[in-house]
């Protein structure tokens, strides 16, 4: 058809790049979280018999600087971040396929326990044990995937149920595998080192150097996995299929994608990732698996990690490190107040990070307002355009006007 009349468009319309919006709003969220907690400290101080209002300032200062005060602290952050990142990937990966995996906890638990069985009972080296964890975690993810695909049962309920099954299942095993347990009193697994030094995650000989027993290659593994997931998600046909199913199951079937198979596969991978996280945590040789009858929280912590990064695999690395930092820095609150403060910070940040949409719209509005034909552009626009020009290379954020198209 001849284009006699061009669809009228807003002249010189530019789009603000997504990344920029995400960064801005994430940044605002973090500021809000810190601000809130800072206020909270004052309130807490005020509740004391004799208040000392210089305390919050100092504590907060310590908190912000805590993890940078020395090498071991930085290492501790990485140590915390590694499993967080992997659990975040587990949850985020499922999210991309439109599945909500609250079961990372269960998958993490079985993964952890079987990695321990692998090294303690079977004398596997660490990397084989990680494989075992991945498989068992994947198995735990398979069940909800299968139930979803075959019976269309909401994965939220299945994964919640399986968390508990995992807890009691591993406890049962631990109780019935005496060689795994410390004797006496035997309410936790024996230190890995006693059975099979090769089962411990390598520390690349940095333990002595840094004097931190938290150092190991866990973080490296986590980052590598994240990158792999990123590639799978954004560069491969499999990622294409997963996201298609996530967005529109029916259309995917129409296109000949085996939607059920994809869902199951997604859950298996998601579970596998949580499984690896479990192995990373326990093969570090620091914590031990106990008969305590409460769910391990690490898997749940994966949810905020994923959400904070909008499930973007590389973003998850960042948010994992950030939350890892919170946990370490949180010790600054111990003694004076209570490390729960960090969870307040975290929750506030997540709460605000949910507002990205609004923030983005706000920015867009401000941005467009400034060029509805009436030439007088405002500072806001100029700034934004500056920043956009930074992104220009990466992605064509500038929509060519109709004229340019037709030429």
């Amino acid at each position, binding site marked *: *058809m*001849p284009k*006699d*009349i*061009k*669809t*009228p*468009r*807003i002249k010189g*319309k530019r*789009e603000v790049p997504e990344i920029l919006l995400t960064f801005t709003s994430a940044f605002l969220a973090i500021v809000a979280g810190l601000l809130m907690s800072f206020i909270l400290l004052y309130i807490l101080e005020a509740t004391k018999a004799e208040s000392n209002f210089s305390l919050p300032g100092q504590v907060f200062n310590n908190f912000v600087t805590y993890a940078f005060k020395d090498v071991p602290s930085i290492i501790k952050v990485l140590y915390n971040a590694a499993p967080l990142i992997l659990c975040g990937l587990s949850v985020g990966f499922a999210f991309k396929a439109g599945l909500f995996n609250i079961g990372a906890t269960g998958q993490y638990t079985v993964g952890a326990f079987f990695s321990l069985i692998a090294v303690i009972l079977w004398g596997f080296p660490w990397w084989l044990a990680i494989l075992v964890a991945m498989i068992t975690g994947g198995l735990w993810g398979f069940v909800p995937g299968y139930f979803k695909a075959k019976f269309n049962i909401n994965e939220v309920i299945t994964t919640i149920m399986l968390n508990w099954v995992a807890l009691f299942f591993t406890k049962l095993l631990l109780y019935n595998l005496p060689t795994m347990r410390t004797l006496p009193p035997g309410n936790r697994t024996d230190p890995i080192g006693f059975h099979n030094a090769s089962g411990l995650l390598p520390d690349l000989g940095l333990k002595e150097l840094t004097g931190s027993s938290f150092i190991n290659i866990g973080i490296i593994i986590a980052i590598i996995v994240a990158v792999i997931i990123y590639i799978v998600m954004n*560069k*491969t*046909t*499999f990622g*294409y299929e997963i*996201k*298609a199913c996530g*967005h*529109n199951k*029916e*259309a*995917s*079937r*129409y*296109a*000949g*994608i*085996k939607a059920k198979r994809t869902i199951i596969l997604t859950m298996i991978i998601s579970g596998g990732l949580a499984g690896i996280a479990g192995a990373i945590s326990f093969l570090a040789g620091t914590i031990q698996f106990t008969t305590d009858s409460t769910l391990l929280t690490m898997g749940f912590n994966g949810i905020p990690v994923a959400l904070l990064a909008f499930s973007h695999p590389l973003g998850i690395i960042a948010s994992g490190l950030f939350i890892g930092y919170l946990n370490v820095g949180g010790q600054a609150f111990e003694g004076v107040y209570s490390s729960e403060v960090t969870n307040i910070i975290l929750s506030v940040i997540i709460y605000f990070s949910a507002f990205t949409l609004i923030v983005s719209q706000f920015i*867009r509005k401000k941005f467009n307002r400034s060029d509805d034909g009436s030439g007088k552009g405002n500072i806001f626009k100029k700034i934004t355009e500056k920043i956009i020009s930074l992104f220009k290379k990466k992605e*064509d954020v500038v*929509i060519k006007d109709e004229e340019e*198209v037709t030429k």
Partner: protein
Amino acid sequence: MENYIIEMENIRKEFPGVVANDNVTLRLKKGEIHALLGENGAGKSTLMSVLFGLYIPEKGVIKKNGEVVNIANPNVANDLGIGMVHQHFKLVEVFTVLENIILGAEPTKNGLLTTKEAREKVIALSEKFNLKVDVDALIEDISVGMQQRVEILKMLYRENEVLIFDEPTAVLTPQEIEELMKIMKNLIEEGKSILFISHKLNEIMYVCDRVSVLRKGKYIGTVNVKDTTTSKLSEMMVGRHVEGVKLSALRKKGNVILELDNITVSSKSHKNNAVNNVSFKVHEGEILGIAGIEGNGQTELVYGISGLEKLVSGKLILKGEDITKLSIRERNLKGISHIPEDRHKHGLVLDYDLADNLILKKYFLKEFQNHGFIKKSNVKKHSDMLIKDYDIRSGKGSSTITRSMSGGNQQKAIIAREIDCDTDLLIAVQPTRGLDVGAIENIHRTLIDQRNKNKGILMISLELDEILNISDRILVMYNGEIVAELDPKKTSAKEIGLYMVGSKQQAKKKKEEVKANA
């Protein structure tokens, strides 16, 4: 001055990337049926949504009986007596007809719902305007036609005086359309005023008093129906002369591409089968049109062929090969492409951009991937090409999120993708649903091209003119069975309509014949 019941003046409504209404003015006289005409994405739905308070315009004023009103939300519209039948019905599927009608205006006695009077009132209304509905049926169980009657009853129940119909006929059968026309006339008798959106000029000529035309969001003009002709109108809306396409004579029947042998497909909505022992053949170089009222098994028939539904019994033979057991993808690769009935449910991943949607059937081919890694550059090239060839219009070209595209253009994208698959069999279900004459003409051209390229085309449509104009052979489907095979040259809309409602049956013998010579 004339007594206008509604005046919309200089309305401007923007959406990210587009100006849907650009300084549009529309005046509705009391007691008239006023048509709103325009291409897909011209801004009709938007303008009506503004009047109904769903969108707040950036500029412009709305007057009711000469007084400026501020329609901030549908509530206000309801209070002003403005009601709307939306292009996509706004009915709660798991509610009964009655519940849907009273929703928002529920009669209650000390807190508890009292449906008794409401029921009587609805029944009375449905008799008065003969809008047959089953008040206690669930929406998900009733036909589209009845759903529309429910929408109309909703307005009448609220005693609205200004009634907006956004593309009401797109989903109706000829009989139903005639019914609707009658109803609209009754409504006028009762002193209502109607705004009527349609792409079908003959309907407009038949019921409307005046027509306002939009093009690309701009107001083109308003004319009296008696002072104009369909060709004048289509010229106004598209900006050029359009002549409906006719079919060149059928070259001799080629060999069979697809054979259905006693196909039976079960139904989602009810327990007995949706398709019963249907058998027919599709040949090279023909367009086989299947007419029928919505819900007589056409959908399931197509699901059966494409593999979206398992067959209960029967055999499917494609180019001499039994494909009954094959998966959807295998069938596609063997040579089936499929323009689906529901473009949003099956046709597109609305949250993917155009480029990704255009490779939906091909992403796994060597052309677009290499060891599982997608070749982004090829994907972009491919979509730019199709966008150009099929004139798919959208805000940001290849990187437009398809959700934000006009349904018309969404449809073009799907057709482009399916034709591009270049298979021997093309199944086209409602290929022009909700599209404007310009777009329809193009799509019909494309289909005929394919047919002339000796492809076999199976076209399912509710639009009788479409069936009559471009099929070489017509089958009529009623109640899950093929009740007639007709020759478009020798039959008429009237006759087909009768088969469609089951009030006419071809002699059994004739039916065997069909099977035999088909």
